[in-house]
């Protein structure tokens, strides 16, 4: 049975306890032999996710939109946090990431509470979609979004000098545009 599974799928089943003891034992034989031969890319990928995840989790990397309390906790933990608080406007200027910044936080003063989910769609000025931040969280007190980001990612994202952000809230299956603004990224 295990032979018919796609290797990555089989690995996922193995870790989730889906395989029988016999299938697991057989996979382990193959997995260890493959790893020794440098051919266990799937296991290496999952391990990478786990290890980097362990690094990101206490630094807010899983938050994708956080709270003031979380940002304060990051600062209290000794991380060098650069908090950017631009005035709400049609075009906001985001300063460059400082050399010694570890965590870059952009405060979005927009109350996004009251929706089943909130996404932020990032586009180039010509409308080309760059990415969508899905299910962003917010501060429970104010509804504002503290966008927490590792400094290296903030620097890479600043390669797009000019972006348009569309914040969309979904309630009962209906999308509502909560705000649209442009950002000029400092470098």
């Amino acid at each position, binding site marked *: 049975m295990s032979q018919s599974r796609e290797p990555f799928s089989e690995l996922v*089943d193995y870790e989730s306890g889906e395989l029988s003891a016999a299938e697991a034992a057989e996979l382990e034989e193959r997995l260890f032999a493959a790893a020794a031969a440098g051919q266990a890319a799937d296991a290496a990928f999952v391990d*990478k*996710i*786990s290890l*980097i*995840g362990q690094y990101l989790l206490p630094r807010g990397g899983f938050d*994708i939109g956080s709270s003031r309390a979380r940002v304060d906790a990051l600062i209290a933990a000794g991380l060098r946090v650069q908090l950017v608080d631009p005035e709400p406007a049609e075009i906001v200027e985001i300063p460059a990431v400082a050399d010694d910044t570890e965590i870059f936080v952009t405060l979005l003063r927009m109350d996004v509470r009251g929706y089943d989910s909130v996404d932020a769609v990032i586009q180039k000025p010509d409308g080309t979609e760059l990415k969508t931040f899905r299910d962003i969280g917010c501060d429970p007190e104010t509804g504002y979004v503290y966008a927490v980001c590792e400094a290296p*990612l903030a620097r890479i*994202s600043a390669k797009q000098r000019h972006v348009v952000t569309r914040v969309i809230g979904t309630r009962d299956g209906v999308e509502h545009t909560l705000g649209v603004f442009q950002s000029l990224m400092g470098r």
Partner: protein
Amino acid sequence: MTDLLSAADLVSSARQGERHAEETLCRRLAPVVRAFARRRLRGVDAVEEFAQDALLLMVEALREGRIEQPERIGGFVLGICRNLAFERARQQERRKALWEQYGSALESVSVHAEVRDTYDVAHLEDCLSQLSKRSRDLLRLGYVEALPHDEVAAQLSVSPANARVMRHRTLASLRECMSKRMSWEAA
């Protein structure tokens, strides 16, 4: 009722399959076992694990009728604790010696080593933000906190079978995202 029995009577009752007698002995001895552990170990998890190990060994001995002097059950459990502590100390000493001699060989497989490549960190963070919150939660629970699959499912309030489907989809999405350059880098 068992609360009033002597230690010897409890051991005798436990040997005859009286589960309340076992429970009473566990309740009586758990505080001192934990005290023993707190004196030697750091962290609530380590203390609790030690206490559980010691009490499990006691219950095993009770059921197998291996306690030759029932009135000295306290001393017997203390012996278990000392043996466990000795085994752990020996294991730790062995570990320390191995680490000092060969530890440098493991530097390349640590979290620290994995996050040296800041591009990989940024890439994973970028991809995480494009997943739904449930998918991020699944990754956090299953691969960062390394919880058992059934517990991951329980925390996500889905069946283990549904959690397995989520696991497949989430990892497949993540692998696809990680196989491409970040959208920020697009010209």
